[in-house]
């Protein structure tokens, strides 16, 4: 009985979480161009909004937005993941003179609103001619990523240090220990870091709006572009196209999630020297 109630609760919660997504999908296939305010299910279904999405006009230029964001996300993902994991590993396993100082420094930096420093970064990038460029955006997203190392460090703290000692006996150097022993054992946190840093450029709106401020449709990322489709002026003509774009963006990301989730569960349950 309790098990049944638990499953009922889960089903209820899952439907709360899935209903908005269902509405997104339904609207993207519905005939209305603007948001449908009277009925949840559209009267008729069509694929035309997806076709329109692939045909750029002066306001909507989805294929370019997608490619822009993908490029930025791939580079950001690689650089940020490396930075975060390296920093977390150093802070968790290694003992050195400025460790405590650097950790406090990271906390202090995180206490400042990130946007404050970004204003200055924007002016600097403008002087260097890197505003409205993907390079500038990649720099903004990834260069400072390592201050968010704490979650990864928390995980590394649960990995037994005896593994490293065992590896030293075998004659491995620190780099080999890091890449061949600790990282494979830490798949969940590696996956978490990869997911979150890859998603960042897709999710971010504020830094993109600061760096890519030209207003030209082809300079936008997906977030900026889709936002422009639902502003006051465009909403009634482009809302369904916005939904179609949202679906198109979410599909590859969801697939990625499900692949990564498999790693995620397997990663830790397979045996390792713990505790």
């Amino acid at each position: 009985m309790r098990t049944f109630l638990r499953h009922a609760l889960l089903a209820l919660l899952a439907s709360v979480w899935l209903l908005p997504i269902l509405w997104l999908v339904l609207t993207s296939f519905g005939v209305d161009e603007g948001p449908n305010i009277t009925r949840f299910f559209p009267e008729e279904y069509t694929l035309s909004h997806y076709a329109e999405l692939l045909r750029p006009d002066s306001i909507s230029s989805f294929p370019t937005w997608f490619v822009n964001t993908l490029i930025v996300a791939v580079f950001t993902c690689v650089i940020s993941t490396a930075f975060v994991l390296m920093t977390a590993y150093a802070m968790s396993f290694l003992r050195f003179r400025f460790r405590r100082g650097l950790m406090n420094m990271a906390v202090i930096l995180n206490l400042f609103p990130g946007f404050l420093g970004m204003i200055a970064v924007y002016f600097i990038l403008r002087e260097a001619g890197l505003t409205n460029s993907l390079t500038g955006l990649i720099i903004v997203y990834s260069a400072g990523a390592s201050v968010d190392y704490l979650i990864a460090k928390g995980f590394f703290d649960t990995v037994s240090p005896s593994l490293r000692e065992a590896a030293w006996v075998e004659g491995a150097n620190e780099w080999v220990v890091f890449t061949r022993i600790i990282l494979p054992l830490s798949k969940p946190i590696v996956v978490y870091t990869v997911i979150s840093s890859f998603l960042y450029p897709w999710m971010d709106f504020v830094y993109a709006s600061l760096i890519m401020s030209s207003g030209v449709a082809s300079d936008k990322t997906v977030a900026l572009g889709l936002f422009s489709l639902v502003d006051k002026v465009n909403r009634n003509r482009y809302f369904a196209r916005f939904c179609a774009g949202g679906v198109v963006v979410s599909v590859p990301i969801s697939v990625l999630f499900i692949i990564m989730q498999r790693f995620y569960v397997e990663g830790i349950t397979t045996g390792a020297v713990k505790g």
Partner: protein
Amino acid sequence: MSRLHPAKEGAFLAFWRMLRRSLLWGADSILHGHWIKGLLLFSAQAALLSGIILTFPSLMKLPSLGTVPAERIWDPITRRNVWNDYDNSFLILLFGVTGIALIILFVVLCLRRGKASRPPSSLREDAARLLGPDFHKTMLLLPVTGVVLVMVIPLAVMILIAFTNYDRAHLVPTNLLSWISLSNFKQLTDLASGGAFAYAFPRVLGWTLTWAVTATLSCYIGGTLLAMLINRRSTRWKPFWRTCFMAAMAVPQFVSLLLMRNLFADVGIVNTLLKGWGVTDWLYRIGAIPTAGHIPFLTHPGWARGMILAINLWVGIPWQMLVATGVLLNIPRELTEAARIDGAGALQVFRRITLPYLLHITGPSLISGMVTNINNFNVIWLLTRDIYVTTDQQMAAAGATEVDLLVTWLYRLTQDQSNYKMASVIGILVFAVCSAITLTAFTRLTRDGKEAAFR
């Protein structure tokens, strides 16, 4: 006497060697036959010194922030009006700060090289050290450099701007900035003269703190409970449930939040449905909504704040579930099983093992989550931008609204009003308000004794 006393000569030689090591990088390495390393060190020193020389003029202009205003002058050669060789106050700030950083770096490196007593090592030995006892340097060089370049130096520049008059009336490069000491800060406390900033600041701050605490705790508790619910042994189709919630996370926030804002718009589908079911009229009768006809989900101060917190749960719980699942799966099975064999009930296992373990691992993330939420831009911005309009004249005069966090206020000040000096002041105050609380909590959580507790 033509020769120095041997002991004195030894001291003199040691001093000379120290001087040579610290000021003439690479000389020692070359004397010991390590040519490549010597040249590398030498070029490093040359690069550092030329950086200092290049930024030095800006450093000298820091006290005045420049004296030559920008103007167009007639160039007889090209027969055109061209910009003169003006001072750019912002670049003076930037290069001045960079120059100071380079000088500090140079002095520190010189002192450290001077102190070293062992003979210079070869590149091969250095490489071995970088993969052994000095591995932290290998790991941290690039991450720390990145942080210094895009966070530390820009932040230093922005902090300095809080003490200048950088606003809409003084824009770089057409105007020169000047130092105005603390008068920007005084605007925030100056209630007597009816200043809008003094009116808006405590209100925005209060909502920011309420939001940060409520949003962080609700997502943390909700996500952890959800993870435990899904991970119970008797729960079936675990991957399916997880996928359901992760699907919500997979939709980028700007899509889901912009969607939400249309769902809950004054003329939106939720309002239509609720009105059809009679909920809206009922709410109006009991006085929960100010106007008949629609529920002001995102347009009334109280409702908007509540909705923002509720929608944030939708966004935040799947993330926390993902993190908590990872930690829960990582709890040593032996611990919980041993406790069960010893006769501990499910509740006791949770209280004595699961909870402390969870808090130990995710405690730091709870604190950093709170700071992240204080600086959380997306949720508020995407839900209320262009929709929520304040009716409070004084808030509007300061460029703020009732649903603004300090950080969205900061954004408005820079993007809508070009008021960089006040934005910078607010940024500094965000820092000041949370740093005291956070640092105490942080040092308590990461004390080394505790780090070792679960090993």
